[in-house]
């Protein structure tokens, strides 16, 4: 039952993803890619609960590693995207 529900969510967000990206100007391809990449660091949210179980087992360590890596993805991703877009603005004005 949960599997069906989650697959339902998956299907809807795939359609939404397609709709969102149509007709984007070519200059924005790279920032858009970078911005979407930052969102894929959402794994951080899953990693956080694994890293905090308090049991000093393998899953805990894997979770902690995942938190560090996903944070690099999130923080770096958003900052790089912002730098790219800041450059665009200067050029345009």
């Amino acid at each position: 039952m949960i599997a069906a529900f989650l697959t339902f969510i998956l299907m809807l967000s795939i359609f939404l993803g397609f709709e969102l990206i149509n007709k984007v100007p070519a200059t924005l391809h790279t920032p858009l890619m970078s911005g979407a990449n930052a969102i894929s660091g959402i794994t951080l949210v899953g990693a956080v609960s694994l890293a905090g179980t308090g049991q000093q087992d393998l899953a805990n360590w894997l979770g902690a590693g995942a938190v560090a890596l996903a944070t690099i993805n999130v923080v770096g991703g958003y900052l790089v995207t912002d730098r790219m877009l800041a450059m665009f603005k200067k050029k345009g004005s």
Partner: protein
Amino acid sequence: MDNLIQFAYVVSAALFILGLKKLGSPATARRGNMISAIGMLVAVVAALLDQGIVEYQWIVAGILVGGAVGVAAARLVKMTSMPEMVALFNGFGGMASLLVGWAALSGGASTFTLVTIVLSILIGGMTFTGSLIAYGKLSETIGSGAVLFPGQQVVNSLIVAGIVGSAVMFCIEPSNHLWLYIVVALSLWFGIMAVIPIGGADMPVVISLLNSYSGLAACAAGFAVNNNILIVAGSLVGASGIILTQIMCKAMNRSLSNVLFSGFGSGKVETA
């Protein structure tokens, strides 16, 4: 509390969608990125309220280390080197999904969960090594040309067969960790093999594609740990990434399948 967390996830999903929408137009792009970042913040804060969390030191340590590396890398990178930096960040995201999938295994899992675990390991692993190769090619730490060798199609086909076989065995026999290690190793190897035959000029397309993969890996990890926001945001990135790849291919006069399967022979004509 759990309800509150779930509603916070709904809010952050809405912010991601709004952010992506605004990223698509030059006037609002920067604000869009900000909105998406706020969505991420909301999701992470909500996740930290989870009652399954009993100690915070490893989470804090991970966030501090990752945050410091991320800030330093994003600030220090030269403007011209940004695409390869995106590739590198993307690879870390893929690796994180691999680790989350692996960690989810310890909870004792149903067959459906096992399938999603194997998918998150597989996609996450190939995203990681594929992104590292893309980074190496763009920064020219390794040769940027296409690497083609005789028998490449055979090798790649064998890897795919090996992945399918070991993934099936893993789902049948999850207690035997040998299958897990084989899946991890083969997925890492496959990422390398999938990207080396692609030449320097096609690299932006490949990074976009790998970005889409890392979204799918996050989505699979979301199924493995039963987390809605991972599924929603992951599939959003997966879908928007693949359509963006398609658009970029068209702009470069290449077909998507050509870039996708160049290691399987169809790209040879174009790589000259």
